[in-house]
């Protein structure tokens, strides 16, 4: 998301992003603003039944129609953005922080620490993500902190493997050997020598993992096992209004479009990043 600001932008013209990528970025920023300003943008209070009609069409009073109880859809989607984006961002930050820190430590430390951790996380990643989520939810329920933590746990192994593969290459460099000889501590090697060299690909990976998390979270909410009513993220909004599907009510189509625009935008943005940032081999 913040790839261009955090990468080393010494020669600016090199980091031009294609038009499609800019479009993706614009959509991402749009949804972030919507999520941040939520309460100020929503025309009606979130829980209030304001329309006499249910599954109402788009009109001047209700720009995006109304849902199965006659609540304003625009307000529900604006608030839904907070849940979808908020939970996903928190989870992806946790997953990537844990994954990258563990991955770099494993690459630098090596030995039994590396092999035990790798074997264990590999086994964890061979449980299908949706199944893992189902098992966790059945055991501990699905409050929002549990959801965030669960999503973070599910996507940590992938992030670990990615960061470790990058960091192993860096750890073999001469300057790391020299840093070791200087007697630098592990913490210094990781933060000052390894991290700056892998930050570009790592942030790209964070973006992709964000998409996976949004997909899984929406899927779980759609099954009724994610964010619990009366709160609703976008996946939950589709579930609530699924009865409107046979007559193509905006209440079921629009949240779907919201999810699709967000995930496709992130993919477009990342696909069109300059190779210098994306490239994992360097």
């Amino acid at each position, binding site marked *: 998301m913040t790839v261009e600001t955090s990468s080393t932008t010494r020669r600016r013209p090199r980091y031009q992003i294609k038009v499609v990528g800019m479009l993706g970025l614009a959509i991402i920023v749009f949804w972030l603003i919507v999520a941040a300003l939520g309460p100020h943008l929503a025309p009606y209070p979130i829980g209030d039944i304001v329309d006499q009609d249910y599954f109402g069409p788009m009109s001047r009073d209700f720009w995006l129609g109304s849902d199965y109880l006659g609540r304003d859809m625009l307000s529900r989607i604006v608030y839904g953005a907070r849940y979808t984006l908020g939970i996903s961002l928190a989870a992806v930050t946790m997953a990537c922080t844990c994954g990258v820190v563990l991955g770099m430590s494993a690459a630098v430390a090596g030995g039994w620490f590396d092999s035990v951790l790798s074997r*264990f996380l*590999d*086994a*964890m990643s*061979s*449980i*299908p*993500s*949706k*199944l893992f989520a*189902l*098992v*966790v*939810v*059945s*055991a*501990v329920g699905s409050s929002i902190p549990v959801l965030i933590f669960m999503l973070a746990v599910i996507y940590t192994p992938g992030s670990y493997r990615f960061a470790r593969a990058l960091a192993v290459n860096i750890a073999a460099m001469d300057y790391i050997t020299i840093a070791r000889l200087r007697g630098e501590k592990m913490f210094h090697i990781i933060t000052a020598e390894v991290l700056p060299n892998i930050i570009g690909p790592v942030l790209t990976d964070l973006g992709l993992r964000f*998409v996976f998390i949004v*997909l899984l979270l*929406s*899927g779980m909410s*759609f*099954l*009724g*096992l994610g964010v619990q009513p009366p709160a609703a993220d976008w*996946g939950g909004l*589709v579930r609530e209004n*699924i009865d409107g*599907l*046979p*007559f*193509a009510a905006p209440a*079921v*189509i629009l949240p*779907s479009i919201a*999810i*699709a625009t967000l*995930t*496709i935008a*992130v*993919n477009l943005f990342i696909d069109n990043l300059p190779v210098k940032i994306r490239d994992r081999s360097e």
Partner: protein
Amino acid sequence: MNKHILFLITNRIIISLITLLIIAVIVFVATTLLPGDTATILLGQSATPEAIEGLRKAMHLDEPAFTRFISWILAFLHGDLGISYSNNMPVADMVGRRLLNSLKLASVTTAFAVPLSLFLGVTTAVMRGSLYDRAVTIFTIGVISIPEFIVATTAVLIFAVYLKWLPALSLTADIDTLAGLLRAYAMPVITLTCVVSAQMIRMTRAAVIDALASPYVEMALLKGASRKRLVLSHALPNSLGPIANAMALSLSYLLGGVIIVETIFNYPGIAKLMVDAVTTRDLPLIQSCAMIFCLAYLLLVTIADLIAILSNPRLR
């Protein structure tokens, strides 16, 4: 087949078995140790301490977790999946028929998805950069980056709401007549095929493009071989291994897709059973379903790896 390749295969299978054991531990720990006491959940808040104690004894909950795990896994290996909490039926009976239904759905989907993605994957690779290639690529990226339930709702919108070819969400159990059977399967199969093919097309395309860029294809080109011959007799045979690998890997996406599709179309398969079990917190049922799913997933991934090993000519 030489010793080296045999060694690689046994090695791979042993790793899968170890992984399966770790998965069993994770599933067991997640479902039995994390939540509150199972006996209390079963009997409710108002139960007397004596009753809870009695049930704990009867269910062997007072034994250490390790012995419980061992007896659970041994029973599982003997086909004894335990008794469901919610209706006291043996889990094996409940799972059996549902599993068959899910396998039917999966095999019908595979029968459609594999030829379709092979065709699209190979043709897009050959016509790389054309309008057709770009259209297919945009479609696959689109399907990959949206959740499965949106693919399903879109399919319903197109085929049921606008075209009116198929009934929307109400699936009846009328699968006795041929027309009823086709109708019952159409929507789930369309959705699953979309989800699985998107992955397959991408991976097949990548494998063929890889093969087309290799020196021996360039050699054939320089020899003056026709484009058709180039693809069919030079590139394709050599990329069969990677393609088969890609197929097996993409089929593992069926597992995630099937959970959503069975729920949305109310299909009486094992994934629906599991989602219902999660809502009622029926732990033995969840454990069994989770193990079956992980087993299927692991099987597909292992097959994919074995194909990759066997099809590598350098190892022969």
